[in-house]
């Protein structure tokens, strides 16, 4: 007889007598994790995996910055350096940023925020995790096979030359793409079909709206990556003549194919981060989000626009002037929904009751850094300026402000915010704030100096550089070390919390969000009984006088208690 998760079997002694039944203690043993269909456990496994990927990618980043301390050789040779930045890029993009928020935090919280017992297709969910593991191993296998030095963009014809490690890396990315598609399909189906009674589309948490928009992009765009990488693999192994100009192919076609996926992928990366910000900013201002439908629809608008702007990566690539004009104009439109989000976040803070707990610090950091990332995007969308700034450190700084200042800060905000719910433990808030200080300052020192390097004309992916660029390179490397120290402090803080953290209450932040209504850590089936939601996830105006300061009480609204 199999034990159904969450159902106490009469007559059998329960091992959870002194502790409430939760998803961590309902089953034990390694098999209960590896074969689990529980979205929360899969989310936790994803979390560990992406954190390992982040650590590896981060070590590569520090090696790169160390090499760039001085012109010429500092610690490694040119071809090793090229391998380092390729691995940094591919690991951070495919193994970390794309799955970080949706697959780790999203997997855990999407069904809970919907009041559902699990995602729509739990087995598909587990398959997506194992595809992720397989894809990651194949991708990392490229290091063993040979020397991957194409950059994460795999531009032809350079990627067609050289050894077979490119096949492993692209093969890995191909498999990772399927993992991404399965997660997307699952989230769309779950959002449509499994919302608890009372959760209407207008009451949908904004984190879900952003994951939903992300999932749509994942399902529509990722197959194009699969096709592109497959064509690259065929071209490399069979020399068909798709991208090789000597055989009548066109290398620019690869750039079009690649960015037709990879530009939408930028929104796969940033939208979930914006979703986290929506949740955190309302909780820590105790105020309903301003312009709910505008914020929700701006996610959808970004998802749609993301498919129409890939050409802005090719302004210098010899594309026709008319195509260039259209892509530049469409690129400017992206600023509008991004701006709407920022303005609505500001309006949410206005007249709120603002607490500066660590999740909120990361969210406020997100807003400031994403604003810089977005505004420097305006430079790059302006055609005449892009022709100067394209493929320089200005671009490197710009996308790190969006991807790290945006997505990673969003991810960290979410991790700090939901950590107590996921683990049942609190962390040391003072240490968390110190780590934030290091991360925030280190990040800005590292990447702000790169804006100046780029506008001064320093091209990217350079092992060696002219002496005139050295002071800024040294500053940037110094910042990277500060950033590294911040992450070490944060890692130690979370590990300490895991083993020695104080027990977390059900709703430590006093949030009105649905996920805080269940027990901590959550019940194996998320809610002991299917909840009926009688209010929205941001209805702080329903608070009593005391609750406005103390935060929402953890118990369910009166309507549910009957």
């Amino acid at each position, binding site marked *: 007889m199999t034990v159904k998760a969450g159902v106490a079997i009469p007559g059998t002694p329960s091992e959870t007598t002194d502790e409430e039944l939760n998803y961590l203690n309902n089953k034990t043993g390694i098999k209960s994790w590896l074969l689990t269909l529980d979205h929360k456990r899969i989310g936790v496994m994803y979390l560990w995996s992406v954190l390992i990927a982040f650590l590896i990618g981060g070590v590569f980043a520090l090696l790169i910055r160390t090499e760039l301390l001085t012109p010429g050789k500092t610690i490694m040779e040119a071809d090793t350096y090229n391998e380092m930045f390729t691995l940094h890029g591919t690991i951070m993009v495919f193994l970390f940023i794309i799955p970080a928020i949706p697959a780790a935090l999203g997997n855990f919280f999407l069904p809970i925020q919907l009041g559902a017992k699990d995602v729509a297709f739990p087995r598909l969910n587990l398959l997506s995790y194992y595809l992720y593991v397989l894809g990651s191993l194949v991708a990392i296998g490229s290091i063993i096979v040979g020397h991957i030095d194409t950059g994460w963009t795999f531009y032809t014809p350079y990627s067609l030359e050289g050894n077979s490690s490119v096949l492993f890396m692209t093969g890995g990315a191909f498999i990772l793409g399927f993992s991404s598609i399965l997660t997307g399909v699952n989230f769309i189906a779950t959002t449509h079909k499994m919302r608890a009674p009372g959760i209407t589309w207008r009451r949908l948490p904004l984190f879900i709206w952003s994951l939903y928009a992300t999932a749509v992009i994942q399902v529509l765009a990722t197959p194009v990556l699969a096709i592109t990488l497959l064509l690259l693999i065929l071209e490399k192994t069979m020399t068909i003549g798709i991208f090789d100009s000597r055989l009548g192919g066109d290398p620019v076609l690869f750039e079009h194919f690649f960015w037709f996926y990879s530009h939408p992928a930028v929104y796969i990366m940033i939208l979930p981060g914006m979703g986290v910000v929506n949740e955190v900013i309302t909780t820590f201002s105790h105020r309903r989000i301003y312009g709910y439908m505008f914020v929700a629809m701006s996610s959808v608008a970004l998802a749609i626009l993301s498919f129409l702007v890939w050409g802005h990566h090719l302004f210098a690539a010899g594309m026709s002037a008319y195509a260039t004009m259209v892509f530049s104009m469409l690129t400017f*439109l992206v600023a509008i929904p991004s701006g709407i989000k920022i303005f609505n976040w500001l309006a949410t803070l206005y007249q709120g009751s603002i607490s500066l707990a660590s999740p909120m610090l990361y969210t406020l950091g997100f807003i400031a850094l994403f604003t810089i990332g977005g505004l420097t995007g305006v430079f790059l969308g302006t055609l005449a300026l892009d022709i100067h700034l394209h493929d320089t450190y200005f671009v490197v700084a710009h996308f790190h402000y969006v991807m790290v200042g945006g997505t990673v800060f969003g991810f960290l905000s979410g991790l700090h915010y939901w950590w107590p719910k996921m683990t049942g433990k609190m962390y040391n808030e003072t240490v968390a704030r110190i780590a934030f200080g290091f991360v925030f300052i280190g990040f800005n020192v590292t990447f702000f100096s790169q804006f100046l390097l780029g506008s001064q004309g320093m091209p990217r992916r350079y092992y060696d550089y002219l002496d005139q660029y050295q002071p800024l390179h040294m500053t940037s490397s110094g910042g990277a070390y500060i950033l590294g120290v911040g992450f070490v402090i944060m890692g130690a803080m979370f590990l300490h919390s895991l083993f020695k953290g104080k027990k977390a209450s059900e709703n430590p932040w006093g949030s009105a969000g649905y996920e805080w209504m269940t027990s901590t850590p959550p019940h194996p089936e998320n809610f002991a009984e299917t909840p009926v939601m009688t209010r929205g996830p941001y209805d702080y*105006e329903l608070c009593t006088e005391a609750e406005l300061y103390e935060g929402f009480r953890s118990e369910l609204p009166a309507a549910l208690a009957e």
Partner: protein
Amino acid sequence: MNDTPVFNAPNGTLQLPPQMSTLAPHVDWLYYLVFWCSVASFVAIVGLMTIYIIKYRRRPGRKSLPTGHNTPLEIAWTVIPLILLMGLFHLGFKNYMSGLVAPKDALQIHVRAMQWNWEFEHPNGTTQMNEAMLPVGVPIQFIISSSDVLHSFYVPEARLKRDAVPGLYTTLWFEVPKERLQGKKDVDVWVFCAEYCGAPHGITNGSEANTNHSTMRAQLHFVPQSVYDDFLKKGPPPPPECEGKPNVASCWGEQIYEQAGCRACHHTDGVTEQPGPNWKGLFGHNVKFEDGTSQVADANYIRQSILQPQAKIVAGYTTINMPPYRLSDREIDAVVAYIKSLGEQ
């Protein structure tokens, strides 16, 4: 032709390099327009955020007010940025087009990119490697192609770049104003490769010129028109560093060896294994070829190996196909003199 406003800073600013093209002041004006708009937006957003955080910080008795709704406000902050952004788009496109469409009378220079060198060909067929002598005060159109992988012809001081794409010609043009000479004989402008193009595996000289993507650079020497005309007639003069040396030709040959990228494949120490034959003791030596024939390495053999490298392949050196190097007669003489100076047998 280009009537957008200008920002003049010939020697550059904290953010931007010196202005060495007639286009640069226009681009820089636009850069600073976007920059100051961005600073204003950032200060407004982060400033408001800071004020709210302080004013509405959580403290006993602080009540958050229910969120209202204001559709006109939402529409205002959608439409106003849209109008500003469309203005920027217009200015950006206008300056972009003026960097793309060359004047009809522009001097046409062919640029061929190859791993990891830039070859320049003047209208009369004279070629130069990783350096080019060019006139000031004349619009110059660069017709860019690539013979292997993607590269990008980037001139930061002209504010321009264009990719070199295999199988496709791309172009850009700019003009260095006469005033930039400021009484000097010439003024130098760097060309970088901005599209990643790799490095040979196992190299240990990655910081030497023209051995990988990061050192794939060239220098453009801008001179008065009269000096350029003279150059076209006689070919490039020996570099000033070699003037007064006992053997000007071999000194010049060594310079070409460094600049033209010969060094990437040919060593001169008689020891190191490289993709190309070692030059030490080559002159006068009997060379065996892949097809079994052999020849004494004399000036004619070296000349042919530079201009038609595939005509005779030295036995055992088939891994890399050397591209033809179109050097002028005087430069070939200099390279021959240099190889000769490395020792005869």
